[in-house]
């Protein structure tokens, strides 16, 4: 019984990973692609690990699966944040339907520090 439930969970996790890849292939903008590729693989990996630990049903497998989920939940947001910041600072173009860029002018150009109010010279040129 637990093995069948584990197999269903493994299939659902693989389906979530497919959803993430569809989002990465179809979204029009880097940041929307990042939205698709950060959250749903995390849920998919958690489902896969839960399914694997239910399928095998042993304590050491469950400990490994829990370690993978904890590692991924810690490292994936860090990697996504660092990549998104680097992409914004290097000037990736936003989608043409973007209504508002709230980070515009808040990064000082050379030191890459974030301010709470937009600077004047950056707000004009872009």
């Amino acid at each position, binding site marked *: 019984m637990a093995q069948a439930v584990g197999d269903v969970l493994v299939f659902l996790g693989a389906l979530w990973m497919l959803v993430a890849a569809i989002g990465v292939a179809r979204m029009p903008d880097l940041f929307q692609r990042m939205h698709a590729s950060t959250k749903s693989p995390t849920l998919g990996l958690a489902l896969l690990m839960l399914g694997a630990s239910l399928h095998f049903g042993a304590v050491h497998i469950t400990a490994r699966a829990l370690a993978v989920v904890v590692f991924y939940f810690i490292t994936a947001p860090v990697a996504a944040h660092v990549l998104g910041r680097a*992409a914004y600072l290097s000037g990736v173009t936003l989608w043409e339907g973007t209504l508002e860029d709230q980070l515009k002018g808040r990064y000082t150009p050379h030191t890459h520090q974030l301010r709470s109010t937009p600077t004047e010279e950056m707000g004009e040129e872009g």
Partner: protein
Amino acid sequence: MSLLHTGAFVCISLALVLAFYRLVRGPSLPDRVLSLDLTTTLVVGLITVYAVSTGQPLYLDMVVVLALISFLATVAYAHYIEKGGMPWRRR
């Protein structure tokens, strides 16, 4: 191999094809880094499905290692992109 395992293999393989499409097509360098990050996660999922399908829990050790390594690659790429990445599009 049951039907659910085959379905999981098909889903992850299609996802790998879509991630490779974004790797080839991606208009900027961070898109390609994002696609490589997703590919690593998909390989982690593929190894897990393979371990469940063959009944060999030893493959989960590789999953632990790969889940730690992938983050380092993305952070290193992002560091170099931020330091001087795309000089043709600097603002």
